[in-house]
């Protein structure tokens, strides 16, 4: 059986790749995809630990996390649409009318 630490490292890697994407990409859609990575890193943990602890709490919760990710993307797409209509771009670094 694969030791639990390997799953943890995998999830940490996925999480940090997601964070990397958020920090270095300007495209809002890529931002959304990176958020998906972040949530799925959590799901890896949940499923792995569910097996580790021998209860289904984690697995069931991971299903809810997936549903939430979908809901978040729905709202995100909506916001990106209005962003595009107002700024004619989906570059998240363009919208800087408010600062300081």
């Amino acid at each position: 059986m694969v030791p639990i630490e390997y799953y943890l490292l995998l999830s940490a890697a996925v999480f940090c790749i997601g964070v990397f994407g958020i920090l270095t990409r300007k495209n809002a859609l890529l931002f959304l995809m990176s958020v998906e990575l972040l949530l799925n890193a959590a799901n890896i943990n949940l499923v792995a630990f569910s097996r580790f602890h021998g209860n289904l709490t984690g697995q069931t919760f991971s299903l809810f996390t997936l549903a939430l990710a979908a809901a978040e993307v729905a709202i995100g797409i909506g916001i990106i649409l209005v962003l595009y209509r107002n700024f004619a771009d989906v570059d998240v670094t363009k919208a800087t009318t408010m600062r300081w």
Partner: protein
Amino acid sequence: MAYQLPGWAALAPTLTFVAAALVLFLIDSIDPDSENRALLAGTATVGSLVAAGFAAWFLIAGTGEEPFTLYADSLVVDSMSLFFAFVFASVTAMVVVASYDYMRDHSYQGEYYALVMLAATGMTLMPAANSLAVVFISLELASLPSYALVAILKKNRGSVEAGLKYFLIGALSSSILAYGISLVYGVSGTLLLPEIASAVEIEGLTGVLGIGVLMILGGFAFKTASVPFHFWAPEAYEGAPAPISAFLSSASKAAGFAVAFRVFTVAFPVEAYVATIDWVLAVQILAVVTMTLGNFAAATQDTVKRMLAYSSVGHAGYALIALASLTGTGSDQFVLGGGMAHLLVYGFMNTGAFLFVALAEYWSVGRTFEDYNGLAKQAPFACAAMTLFMFNLAGLPVGAGFMSKYFLFAGAVGAGFWWLTAVGAINSALSLYYYSRVVKAMWIEEPTQEFAIESKPVGLYAAIAAAAVVTVLLLPGFGPVWAFAQDAAAALV
């Protein structure tokens, strides 16, 4: 003899909000182009007032004295969750009443009120959550409608930009929260808060658990707009429609604190964690940084709404003192109660202040301090109320803002964290500077422009008046507030 209500009836405030949202959906789907603002705003107002009524009734009747646990322990209704339900419902009521005028020519009336109701549903569930699963989902339920509400002025660049930033930082923060939850689950094997406290084996897993705890703290810090998770707040509060700014900075922030209070006191008790995972220390750092950054940045703003936004960040720092002063001893109840009482009072005074900004936007007064010059000549009542809110936010003894801040500070000193109080007091001194700028502009300066104030909108005036009256009345009436806040805190420690 007495008829025993079923257990789920204890969730009445939440259920009322859901029902109001469904009724609004129904109205909206029957007549999608409905211009009947009174019906929509009225439904939402009735919903929030009924919810507030339920919460108050349960509180007074002592429903929460023996905590109810419901649905396989995933929810708990006690005096603390009811106390906060009352806070959210009162703020929501003021916000929807004010929105009646603010959103007067706007499309999407039905959706607007429905989303407010749904966000309020999420908020009322947050302090009642007894499982990290429910914590996460109810937090999302409070957040997702808020993203849409912030961006609802779809042709206004500020509103859209605010929505974008709020959403992006929110998505990142909620992912961090989810990851933290997964790590805590990994160490403890359960998501139920009381069981986490008992099941955790610290041996060998301190680091994993510690990362989990701090990531959960980060998720809540986003909700409460605490540094460094606060970056969305100044923009979101500035860009959003002002009633939504009021809603977010008062109710949503209080919800974040409520859930943080419960999770950290129940699942991660201080005594067991102080040596290895000193989250109290982390919260102390956050509190000091948040207070200082919020107040210092607020002092240099040119626009009133953004000043209020930063001041709201500063106030998050004050409320964090309640969490930062926990020691696991007898003083916990006092300081937590102080934090809760402060959040209640803050709910009224801060909502009132943002609603005054809403009124100014309604009149197209402009947004800088200079634009407010001489406004008191045209609208003395509203300006008097705004003056009251400003002085209360600064902690002058003209309303309950003084009392609650005083009790919070007293609790921190009582717990031995006098230096947190000292930082808070210095920041309060600075805050007076920028609050008094508003007062000075309104009452003392000469007008620089002609105001085109044709009407005095009833809804906005009613909401502002309600906030002002309650803020003042809570000064003599602070006794009951304090008693309820102490009960609520006693439910946790």
